[in-house]
């Protein structure tokens, strides 16, 4: 997989895809969706689709693709290489969602939670396949949230396609297993080749599994927290583990929208017009200065 | 100028996290 785009800029999202096999443009295809890296506090999350014609489903199954979680990294890489060899009937595409994108989505003023981000990414990948001319007739998805709600939503987006959302779909349907392998292989490679934009001091590359309950990962987070800037962008700031460390180790930061409704020491502007009892009023400066946030300097 | 207030005045490794651009 060519990750040069992600290596240049790992702050957003990045799409990778295989060429679309010719047979997929002619015959009805089955498409599987899965993800990798949902739980870790470090690194990107990857969504992947994998598709092949119904007539070649048995060939895909013959590759002995299984739930990627049960395979070792080397087994996954081997299987992915085999899929690549069989690219005349198997196609794939994936979206790499950077930890920075996950954090800014979840922590934005308008909240964009992880489930919505996941649903939208999966929908976009299915649409991508359709836009490339793949004759998708069936879609199988490993569930994120309630399977019934998710299935209904996806079915509404793709009315001409039979959509099945099921828990543990990666162990039930070989296209989902194949997508699972693509996603995991991609995440492993993205994490292995991660380019830290920050020039970190005393950088330790051994961060454990990246999962929040891994003591090694927790120790790595505590070691690499900077009191003003927090963590490197490899870390998902929106994860509770990360936020807890920031609350304890980092400097407090105040934003204007957190203090809406606060009264300033000079009082609300209406107090100059309403009878609010005896009070020493400061002279209100001319609006030219008020509008620009300017006042006379009285101390150095 | 930051759009928030860091409630401290102290050394900070600005150069390690930010690259200035004009």
């Amino acid at each position, binding site marked *: 997989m060519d990750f040069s785009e992600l290596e240049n800029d790992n702050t957003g999202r990045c799409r990778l895809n295989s060429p679309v096999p010719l047979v997929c443009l002619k015959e009805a295809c089955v498409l599987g969706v899965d993800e990798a890296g949902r739980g870790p506090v470090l690194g990107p999350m990857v969504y992947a689709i994998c598709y092949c014609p119904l007539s070649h489903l048995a060939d895909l199954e013959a590759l002995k693709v299984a739930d990627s979680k049960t395979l070792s990294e080397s087994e996954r890489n081997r299987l992915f290489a085999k899929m690549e060899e069989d690219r005349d009937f198997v196609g794939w595409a994936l979206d790499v969602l950077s930890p920075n994108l996950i954090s800014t989505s979840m922590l934005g003023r308008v909240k964009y939670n992880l489930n919505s981000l996941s649903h939208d990414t999966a929908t976009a990948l299915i649409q991508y396949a359709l836009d490339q001319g793949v004759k998708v007739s069936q879609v199988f998805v490993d569930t994120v949230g309630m399977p019934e709600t998710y299935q209904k939503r996806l079915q509404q987006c793709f009315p001409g396609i039979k959509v099945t959302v099921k828990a543990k779909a990666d162990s039930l349907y070989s296209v989902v297993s194949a997508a699972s392998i693509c996603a995991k292989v991609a995440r492993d490679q993205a994490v292995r080749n991660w380019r830290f934009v920050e020039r970190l001091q005393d950088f330790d590359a051994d961060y454990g599994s990246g999962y929040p309950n891994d003591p090694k990962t927790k120790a790595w987070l505590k070691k690499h927290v900077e009191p003003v800037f927090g963590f490197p962008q490899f870390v998902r700031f929106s994860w509770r583990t990360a936020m807890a460390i920031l609350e304890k180790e980092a400097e407090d930061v105040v934003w204007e929208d957190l203090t809406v409704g606060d009264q300033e020491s000079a009082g609300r502007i209406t107090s100059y017009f309403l009878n609010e009892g005896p009070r020493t009023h400061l002279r209100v400066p001319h609006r030219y200065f008020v509008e620009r946030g300017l006042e006379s300097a009285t101390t150095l | *100028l930051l*759009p928030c207030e860091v409630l401290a005045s102290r050394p900070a490794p600005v150069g390690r996290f930010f690259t200035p651009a004009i």
Partner: protein
Amino acid sequence: KNLYLFPEYLKDASKKMKHGLMFVKLVNPCSGEGAIYLFDMYLQQLFEVKVFKEKYHSWFINQSVQSGGALHFATPVDPLFLLLHYLMKAGKEGKFQPLDQVVVDDIFPNSILLLKLPELEKSLCHVTEEKVNPEITNKKYYKYSKEKTLKWLEKKVNQTMAALKTNNVNVSARVLSTAFFSSDQVASDKEEDYIRYAHGLISEYIPKELSDDLSKH
């Protein structure tokens, strides 16, 4: 750490002269309280210091973070505004006095530095009646003149209005709908807005009683 924004030419002042740039506390002629001013002793110019201050800001200054986010500006100010404060006070005595007796301030002793500005003496005729004592080698005596001051301030207001227009500063007191007003009325309303706004800005530099007189004028 504090951040200051100065005109480029002020760089010379500190290089070419010891104590070329001096921050001093002088009287704010509007409030009567102290405010920070900057003397360029090299070019012999006075600057007022304004602060941009909004809540919830910090600075990155080199390799440090500084809470507060204040930015200080130095901009030229007409020293006659400050002198006016003392002239008006002395004028209540009804006598002609030399400047060095007028500009005496125990609270802001650095006010005497105003007398070092050479251009100031030339502009005194805008706000005072002047007498010369031939017996004491042409020593000059001054008395505050309200009529002259109002005429001078009127010019200031006109200059300010011109500057507001040039700089497209929004001076409207209200949102106008051109659907309901004739263009003549819109134009005259706008002119009134400019006068009101400019008067308000000039009032930031003069005592309230003078501002009220200027408004009537």
